[in-house]
């Protein structure tokens, strides 16, 4: 059985490219895989399309999906940015309106017109979570792979009736890394692009509170600042400008990233709104047995309580986060979470187990319909031969359904 695999790949710098680079060798040990390139469609029994929110990385993949439907790995369920990029971004405003109408009917179409006429702010920047536009992709998917219950439930809410396989995001193997030479008591890390979505203002406020109680605390911020996010001004406002307690690194290579995570006592990964995404950063943190503090939303909420402290997104967010960081300043609390994190990652996010589940999903997707036809055909012939009445046929159908046949 052969799989055509559509995904951004390194050197593309997206999390999904990293994901595929990590998954593919394990998947290739189980099924034959050919990686597709833009404009090239390998012959295959089943096609697997990785869909994320970045139109530059995923536009060609959606085009291919539209030509040859297949199984979609839905990395997030809010896809407004992607849909806007491959419609408005390509001068196809009508397609954007159709996507909006599919999701919200006439109201959606009118909102879309407002966006096209510059009468409304760009919805993918201001309120994407309210208009996910995932339906366009769901219409094309013969099956879905998701990483979380959050995305699975969202797909069902949007009326998706096909098969869904929930496959956890594989974690990276625990690398033997030397912690970077950065210290704090405690050292709090935050990894990934710095923007409003990651709740950096709330993190900075919480850290200022923590530092008032624990002067040895330091905050390590790793990742590029978003265009319209002025980190320096925010630090200045909190009296942290130029403070050695703030350690800043921009984009770092993978090896340095691991080494910095290893140096941290606790890592913070807040998010709101969530697009339903799984965080590769959080999985790296847990892979190294570091306690995580996350927002109590989406996939992050699904993490077990013993591996991550969850901060509700409300008016007390910064205070709650400060309290969580204060608690995790205690080595005993960190040790218990560290053990739990390592066990959790081994149990739920093991690469081989994830690849096994992918192989199972792809094999079911490729041949499942033919198998169902064959079995149902045989049962139907037998039922017809004995003249099975409707009530008994219903019973037989029920038994078939519950057996997963």
């Amino acid at each position, binding site marked *: 059985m052969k799989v055509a695999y559509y995904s951004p790949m390194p050197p593309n710098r997206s999390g999904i490219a990293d994901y595929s680079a990590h998954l593919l060798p394990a998947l290739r040990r189980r099924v034959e895989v050919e990686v597709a390139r833009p404009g090239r469609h390998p012959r295959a029994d089943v096609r697997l399309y990785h869909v994320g929110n970045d139109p530059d990385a995923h536009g060609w993949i959606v085009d291919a999906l539209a030509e040859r439907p297949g199984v979609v790995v839905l990395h997030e369920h809010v896809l407004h940015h992607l849909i806007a990029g491959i419609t408005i971004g390509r001068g196809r405003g009508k397609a954007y309106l159709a996507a909006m109408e599919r999701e919200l009917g006439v109201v959606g179409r009118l909102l879309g017109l407002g966006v096209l006429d510059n009468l409304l702010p760009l919805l993918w920047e201001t309120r994407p979570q309210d208009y996910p536009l995932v339906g366009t992709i769901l219409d094309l998917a013969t099956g879905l792979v998701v990483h979380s219950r959050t995305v699975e439930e969202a797909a069902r809410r949007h009326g998706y009736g096909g098969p869904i396989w929930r496959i956890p995001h594989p974690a990276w193997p625990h690398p033997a890394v030397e912690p970077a030479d950065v210290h704090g008591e405690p050292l709090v890390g935050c990894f990934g692009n710095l923007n409003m979505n990651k709740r950096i203002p709330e993190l900075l406020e919480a850290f200022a509170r923590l530092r008032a109680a624990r002067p040895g605390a330091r905050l390590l911020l790793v990742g590029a600042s978003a265009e319209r996010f002025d980190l320096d001004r925010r630090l200045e406002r909190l009296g942290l400008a130029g403070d050695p307690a703030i350690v800043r690194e921009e984009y770092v290579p993978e090896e340095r990233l691991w080494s910095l995570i290893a140096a941290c006592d606790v890592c913070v990964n807040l998010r709101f709104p969530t697009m339903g995404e799984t965080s590769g950063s959080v999985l790296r943190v847990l892979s190294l047995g570091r306690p995580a503090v996350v927002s109590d939303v989406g996939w992050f909420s699904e993490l077990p309580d013993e591996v991550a402290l969850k901060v509700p997104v409300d008016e007390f967010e910064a205070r709650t986060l400060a309290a969580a960081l204060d608690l995790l300043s205690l080595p005993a609390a960190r040790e218990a979470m560290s053990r739990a994190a390592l066990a959790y990652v081994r149990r739920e996010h093991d690469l081989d187990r994830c690849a096994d589940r992918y192989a*199972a999903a792809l*094999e*079911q997707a*490729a041949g499942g319909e033919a*198998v169902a036809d064959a079995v149902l055909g*045989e049962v139907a012939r037998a039922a017809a031969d004995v003249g099975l009445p409707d009530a008994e046929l219903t019973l037989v159908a029920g038994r078939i359904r519950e057996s997963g*046949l």
Partner: protein
Amino acid sequence: MNVVVAAPQVPFARGGAEIMAETLVDELRARGHEADLVTLPFKWYPGTRVLSQALLWRLVDLDEADGRRIDLVIATKFPSYAIRHPRKVAWVLHQFRQAYEYDRTELGQFSESAEDRATRRAVERLDRVALGECRRVFATSHNVADRLRRSVDVEAEVLPHPPQRLAYRTDSYDDFVLSVNRIDRAKRIDLLVEAAAAEPALRVVVAGDGPDRARLEQLARDRGLNGRVEFRGRVGDDELVDLYARCRAVFYAPIDEDFGMVPYEAFLAGKPVLTTTDAGGPLEIVADRETGLVTAPEPAAIARAAASLDEPTARAYGDAGRSRAERVTWDACIERLLAFA
């Protein structure tokens, strides 16, 4: 208590699984329970037939039997545990091995076609559903329990069962090694035949019948062993007990076997077991140089092991094995099974 034992049946085939199911019914009755064996024929080929045949079990209505409540259903092999009952336990001898450990080996049945791959996955899915419904899943060995955990995430309690009830005895330690098995490739009796070719003093008696018999007989002829490897075919209980009573040792080395009653039978006759490092379930009771010999799965190693077993050594290992086998009783098995009624 009214208990149904559910087991599939392959017409004209009879082996350890059939004996186990029948014995379980007998042992339940001997303890005052109403027990019956429910069976359906099983054919697992071609194509998707394995699924439609499994579905037959799903359609069996055992909610009650002519007004009598059924307190417990004990299902054994695939696909009998697909049966639907509120008080069901599975005592798994093995899953449908072609879909698991035999897959992509010469013993498998599923090709690389999309339909075959999906059929295999449907078997896997059915196992998850059917075993997931059980009040308790038991496995006859750690090997089977490990496979259940690895393949379908089902936790099983290990519950080995005693072998068939025969009048086992020890008469002598004659100069032959006995093989008791259905003769098919997975049982690897050819290793023993080749061992006889490598060791001129080794004499072999093969009891049992099966699809690989003609090939093995030809192999023995090709190696010029006609006088030293004797094929007895299917033997009756008395003859089997007699062979156990007189042999020097019993060879039992299927590849990655589930459990295997043969080592228990050998031990109850006071005989050591020759097995191999990749035999699976038998390794749970055959301890090297304690109750038998465990060698590499190579004829030369098996030949050396057989030649090293003088009578006192064979007797010592056999006695140690007997004391282990005697600890596995029907009383204990039935108490565990009925605890989930």
